[in-house]
């Protein structure tokens, strides 16, 4: 591993701790996935294998649950792909900053580009090249190890966290914090509010596809607002 020292660098440590804060509220989600595997009736190793192979929580739950319910492979795969399609936006958003990175990292980084890693790194694009890489790797590896471990734990223990103490809400809370601190113009604020509104209105669309339309609508509005500024 060319970056074995990444945890020793300052930004490596920051990436680790920032990811840790997002790991904790995601624990119930990982345990729920383990439970979904057990209830699907699939062999547990088979269900869990989607963790290292796909590394995409919501898409994994969609796929395994639908397969367990007896949906056709094509239907389950299509739904899971639609759920995961937001990653196309992450890829697009990260493309410029990745141009300055070494080739090995450009091939490795997409594997770890989960919601939390995107949320943490999207505001760090102005960091020096090596610092950005250390931060991204530390956050990505931390999240990866967490997801592998806790989806496996969930296969055996089920959700052990009491329902009364709902910590999963900490994820939208932290994402809201990251969103607000990333906004540096009124245009971006308007776009964010608009994207939320469209997602809310399209809540009933299948497989979270409302999110994709909301993001596209937000981008178009952003470009229109840019025109108005001139």
């Amino acid at each position, binding site marked *: 591993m060319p970056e074995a020292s990444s945890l020793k660098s300052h930004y490596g440590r920051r990436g680790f701790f920032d990811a840790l*804060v997002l790991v904790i509220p995601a624990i119930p989600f990982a345990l729920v996935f383990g439970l979904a595997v057990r209830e699907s009736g699939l062999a547990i190793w*088979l269900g869990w294998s*989607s963790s290292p*192979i*796909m*590394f995409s929580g919501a898409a994994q739950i969609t796929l395994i649950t639908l*397969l367990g319910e007896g949906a056709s*492979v094509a239907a389950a*795969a299509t739904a*899971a792909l639609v759920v*995961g399609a*937001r*990653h196309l*936006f*992450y*890829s*697009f*958003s*990260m*493309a*410029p900053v*990745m141009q300055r990175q070494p080739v090995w990292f*450009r*091939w490795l*980084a*997409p594997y770890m580009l989960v919601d939390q890693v995107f*949320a943490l790194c*999207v*505001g760090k694009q102005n960091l020096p090249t090596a610092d950005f890489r250390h931060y991204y790797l530390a956050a990505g590896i931390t999240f990866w190890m967490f997801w592998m471990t806790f989806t496996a734990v969930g296969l055996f223990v089920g959700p052990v966290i009491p329902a009364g103490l*709902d910590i999963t*809400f900490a994820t*939208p*809370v*932290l*994402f*809201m*914090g*990251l*969103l*607000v*601190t*990333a*906004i540096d113009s009124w*245009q*971006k*604020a308007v*776009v*964010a509010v608009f*994207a*939320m509104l469209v*997602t809310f209105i399209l809540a009933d669309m299948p497989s*979270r596809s409302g*999110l994709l339309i*909301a*993001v596209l609508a*937000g*981008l178009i509005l*952003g*470009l229109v607002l*840019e025109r108005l500024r001139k």
Partner: protein
Amino acid sequence: MMIFATIVLMGLGSYAMRAVFILLLSNHTFPPLALKALEYVGPAVMAALVMTMLLSPEGGHAPRVYEWAGLATAAVVALLTRNHIYVLVLAMGVYWGLGYLM
């Protein structure tokens, strides 16, 4: 075996969706319009993601008052302090506190 093949194909699909622009655009200069649009991807996706997390996967579930209050607290605290620990503590405090009262 069929299921495992499906999971492997989905894994390739997941990777492809995350990699496509990073790898294909690695040697291209971005036209100004694309660069402008890029700036809005982060805010738009994050906002849509936050809202998606409040809605149930089956759709139709309207977020409850204490969920709105928790999110509003998070936004205000982030705006005023830029400190994510304060955001976490205060917003979760409002969320749990109001949820307990209601």
